[in-house]
């Protein structure tokens, strides 16, 4: 939340957990070709690590982990990476999102498809991670709670 948690247990536990969760998220993303996982799960794991930091360390101390305010723009960048991969295949002479036609010389179509899958998984990872962080930041920073609560009490 906005202030840091007062419990030292939560502070220490989450400071230790955050890098581990980020490492697992990166592993899930990069190993998506060979094991269960992929862009969506890796992106959610990376977002969860940042959100746990926000929850325990407070909004100001967790700015060093990830600065709030740039998340929405980076989410759009993630979606654009995905669409740009499809458009690059369109430029190479194939259909939209047909990675076998990516304009990279020296690779046969299966290797190009492998590369295209990696590119769009990167786009999905960035998009989902930044979208979740953006939702979290907007909810924390909005100041509409008193009027909403007054209607219930």
């Amino acid at each position, binding site marked *: 939340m906005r202030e840091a948690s007062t419990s030292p247990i939560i502070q220490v536990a989450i400071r230790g957990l955050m890098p581990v969760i980020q490492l697992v998220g990166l592993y899930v993303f990069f190993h998506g070709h060979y094991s269960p996982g992929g862009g969506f*799960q890796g992106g959610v794991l990376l977002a969860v690590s940042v959100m746990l930091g926000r929850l325990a360390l407070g909004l100001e101390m967790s700015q060093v982990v990830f600065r709030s305010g740039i998340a929405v723009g980076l989410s759009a960048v993630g979606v654009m990476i995905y669409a740009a991969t499809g458009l690059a295949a369109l430029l190479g002479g194939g259909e939209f999102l047909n990675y076998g036609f990516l304009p990279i010389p020296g690779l046969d179509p299966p290797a190009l498809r492998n590369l295209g899958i990696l590119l769009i998984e990167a786009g999905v990872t960035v998009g989902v991670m930044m979208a979740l962080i953006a939702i979290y930041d907007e*909810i924390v920073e909005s100041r509409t709670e008193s009027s909403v609560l007054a209607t219930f009490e």
Partner: protein
Amino acid sequence: MHWQIEILLLVILVVAALTALQLKNLLAAVVTLNIFSFMSAALMVSMGAIDVAFTEAVVGAGAVGIFNILAIFRTTRRTLD
């Protein structure tokens, strides 16, 4: 031995769902809901759908729990009904 584990997981699933409905303390209800998500992920693993189980565990027991805790912090800790 396999089906006894599945029966156990299903019983925990139903008990967790009913407990989450009955609890007045919303933070405890969120934790119970996370147990529900995790048990359904374990059931999906036992059925062989590893990718779906992974998504369910990450989203249902991770991100949704954090968003629910955030909503509790912004509103009230106990239900009003």
